[in-house]
């Protein structure tokens, strides 16, 4: 399984440019918002965490659709389906590799963009933390969509559509935890814990559902 992880990382560095395209898109989104709301620093810092989260959410969607499709097109998926190793595990490892290559860079880039948005240090730290625990959930949810769309020639957008509604809870709790860290009365921990719970939940459900979908889609 380590070999699968390494291969996927290698592939995304070598080919798809997974890491960079996500980060670049993230930056683009964040760069455009000040143009939109004007140079009102207070407003910017207020909507900062929300914008960072939206940007990260959308950026994680890029490339997610090819998670299994590329494997199917060259026949690798067939072999993966045949192995003794449980398919769920294979899916899980692929998700982790995908997150490492394209979700982690987003988390790392977040503080920089937070500065652009004039966010306070606490807010930046909190947003980064919530992104760190929240973005894997998006990958896991996305894996289900990718598995469903695996046989579709242009599944790309469809995946995002299936994924986005399910990702809304992640977004809500992520953003509210980030806000809670800045605004005094609201406690930070409960939404963060819920976010962790959501991530763990999808870490179990996502690969299971994706494995099921892959099995039944095979033809």
């Amino acid at each position, binding site marked *: 399984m380590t070999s699968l992880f390494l291969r996927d990382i290698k592939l995304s560095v070598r080919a798809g440019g997974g890491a960079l395209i996500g980060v670049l898109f993230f930056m683009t989104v964040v760069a455009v918002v000040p143009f939109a709301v004007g140079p009102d620093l207070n407003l910017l810092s207020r909507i900062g965490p929300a914008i960072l989260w939206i940007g990260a959410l959308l950026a994680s969607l890029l490339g997610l659709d090819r998670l299994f499709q590329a494997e199917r097109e060259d026949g690798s998926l067939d072999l993966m389906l045949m192995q003794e190793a449980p398919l769920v595990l294979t899916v899980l490892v692929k998700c982790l590799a995908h997150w490492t290559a394209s979700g982690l860079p987003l988390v790392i880039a977040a503080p920089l963009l937070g500065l652009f948005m004039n966010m306070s240090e606490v807010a930046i730290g909190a947003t980064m933390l919530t992104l760190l625990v929240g973005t894997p959930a998006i990958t896991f949810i996305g894996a289900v969509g990718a598995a*469903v769309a695996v046989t579709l020639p242009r599944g790309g957008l*469809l995946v995002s559509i*299936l994924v986005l509604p399910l990702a809304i809870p992640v977004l809500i709790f992520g953003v509210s935890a980030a806000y809670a860290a800045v605004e005094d009365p609201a406690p930070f921990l409960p939404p963060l814990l819920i976010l962790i719970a959501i991530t763990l939940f999808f870490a179990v459900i996502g690969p299971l559902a994706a494995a099921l979908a892959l099995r*039944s889609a095979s033809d």
Partner: protein
Amino acid sequence: MSENSLAIRKFSDLANPTRFLGLAALVLPWLAGLTAVLFAIGLYLCFTTEGDYQQGETVRIMYVHVPSAWLSMMCYTVMALSALGTLVWRHPLADVAARAAAPIGAGFTFLALVTGSLWGKPMWGTWWVWDARLTSVFVLFLMYLGLIALNRAMDEPGKAAKVSAVLILVGFVNIPIIKFSVEWWNTLHQPASVLRLGGSAIDPEFLRPLLVMAVAFTLLFFTLHIAAMRNEIWRRRVTSMRRQAARSAGREV
């Protein structure tokens, strides 16, 4: 027990596509006629009853808004039942029913959204607010469109069936949210006043056309649904005959 098995036999008789086609051909003209008559009566009532002293003319929007809102939820419920049919009983017709209902449901939901907005502008002073009721209806609309897109994208119905059945059932949580959102969260939207425990709280003056229109919309739904199911069955036959042709091609060479 024998009664039970008889019911099951009846049910599976109906679930036989060929039988269904015959039945549909028989029923459709009558249903369509009845729908047209009810719409005529309903529309007549809509425009002859008096306006509300508070809402003025705009109350007439209610006669299309409320039935289409109800229908949008009912249609999803029909789809959810069909999804159960697909997953539990594996009835071939269940998937056909779910597939055929999606575009119709999307149509009604679209109507509910548009008429609601058109009502909201004079009443609330804005086309749209992100309150629980409105947002959940919008999500319902997106779900319909997503299901349509999914069905269109998968060219093999057998394969799409299970996936969309699961998706429909997952999305069903939205229905109670729509229904009770006005009670759970405080929203701008009207709470239930027709369909509620303890009788209707609406003036019979408005109730009469509303109910007629509601029945007319419901019949319209069934007419369209049965016709669309028939189309879907035909579509599948065409596909399967084409595949068969593919296989027999070149046999004599």
